[in-house]
């Protein structure tokens, strides 16, 4: 089963899915700088048809955290 969230992060961090996991964060992925973070917000909003608030954005400190935020917003298929 495809992990849509990892797909989005692969595009946003310009890498491949096998290099990503829920533990991936700005601390262990050098591509995840502030510009990439902004791109990721745009990509996530489009892919999951949602709007992220600043509070949502600030919680997304790892892919797993992003998954939790999106689940809490009722996004399905994660």
């Amino acid at each position, binding site marked *: 089963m495809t992990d849509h969230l990892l797909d*989005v992060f692969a*595009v946003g961090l310009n890498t491949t899915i096998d290099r990503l996991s829920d533990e991936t964060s700005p601390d262990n992925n050098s591509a995840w700088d*502030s510009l990439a973070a*902004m791109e990721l917000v745009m990509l996530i909003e489009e892919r999951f048809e949602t709007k992220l*608030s600043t509070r949502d*954005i600030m919680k997304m400190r790892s892919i797993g955290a992003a998954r939790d935020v999106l689940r809490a917003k009722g996004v399905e298929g994660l």
Partner: protein
Amino acid sequence: MTQSTVSVTSLRQRWLDFQRHSTSSPDITVGVAASFTAEPLEPFLGASLLDHGFVPAITFAQYDQIHQVCSDPDSTMGTVDLLVLLWRIEDMFSRDFWDAVDGGDRATTRLVGGLEQLGRGVGELAARVSYPVFVSYPPVPSGPGIDELDSRLGVRATRLHGIAMEAFMAGVAEAPVRMVDLNGWVCQFGAMNANDAAKAFMYRQPYVTAFLGMIGRNLADCIARETKPIPKCIVVDCDNTLWGGVIAEDGIGGIALGSTFPGSAFQEFQRVLKRLNRAGVLLALNSKNDHSEVLAAFTQHDEMLLSTADIAVWRVNWQLKSQNIREIAVELNISEDSLVFIDDSSHELAEVRAALPHVRTLQVPEELELLPDLIPESGLFRNMHVSQEDRVRTEMVSTEGYRREVASTLTKEEFLASLELEVEFFAVGEQHVTRVAQLTNKTNQFNLTTIRRTEAEIRALLNESDHNVYAIRVSDKFGDYGLVGVAVVGHFGARWEVDTFLMSCRVLGRGIETAFLARVVSEAVAGGAGAVTARYVATPKNGLVEDFYLRHGFIQVGDGEFEANPIDVTSAPGHIAFR
């Protein structure tokens, strides 16, 4: 006009794939400097440039480095083929703009001065570098906490935006700058839809993704115009193209052209052609008709907007349309690919396409309400005004001569700036009456109406509620010139009338008259004026100021009578400080 929705994911993927796999070196390097975080534009601009056939590279200046890029493009931007400056008033002049909206006089002055300085910086950059410089015409500022539906705030912000942008454009002056209409794009998209508060606060990136897509696409179109020529001539059919119906059958009275549909659609189409013609596009007729019938429609039909003078070449005959187009191209000495042919008949269009594959063709739509948008939708002439004007200017400016001219202009500006001119603008009080009356009686050259007044008359004016008397005191680093200018202004509802405007000759040639008038007009604006009128009464001695109002944004409305929308009046020059 429709805008397709943009998928950020697919465009970004396309841009990444291009960057990863492209082996050819870029044929265009676009530098972008912005007053906000502009990097998210990259995939949109990049993919749109790919669509135009470019092999692009895009580089970004550091965030909010517009001034630095203007003064030192090489070290801030690197080597580029083209520079885009995207700036917004609320990013660079936030405090002054909102203070001015809230009624701060000094804030308005600072804002206008800052905008003119920025305009000058952009203009000097464009005159200095060898590549095209694009700069945004920024939107009416919006900001957190601003109620976009509040009319009072909205109107003030819009008017101030106009005043501020006049100052910016005055600073740019004649420099070869390409304007990109960010303001228009925001309006098209809708300000409330375009802005994204979360990204603005988190990343200083103000716009939603879809609007970034629109910016990227429109910028790419502007950029493509630098290399893709605009058609030089539009060849049009007549029956069911310029008017509805067939002139030979329906007669002049029977064709559809006028204020009611469908005649109105044809009339609006003619208006588009007329506009393009005024902008330099040639028009030619290509119609299977008797020449005399078409000529009669042009000369006798009251609702024709096009006139015979607008048509460069007539081919009204019974030849093949492709043959006519060949002859038009020869007569105008232009190549077939600079011609656009518009007709309602699929048959005629097919004949032309088969014989002349390089001629672009457009067909009159069956739904006539779409006819006026036919040419705009094609995009064939989009951004023409800017670039054609600039192209002419580019030839002019690429010479050393222009640079020298810029240099000498700068020298004059530097000279003026070095004077440290200060103007004190104030309402005349009892203590000034003697000097004011003296000036109205002594001043001959710079005196627009030469109305002589006694001290008693001046005093009487001070007590009249519908008249204001203003004066200026001028000083520079060499000393104080004292009270040297007087204006008497009557206000009658939304119309303010400048009755007396005079200045002592010893302070002329420093832009002070411009600053004085700008201040009088800003008083009028503050007093609720929607229009300012003024008079010039010729005397044997005041020829100097004959065209003063015309040079300051007024239009002539009668013999010696002028009128201006306050927004159109020339702003105070940046080298003058108000005290």
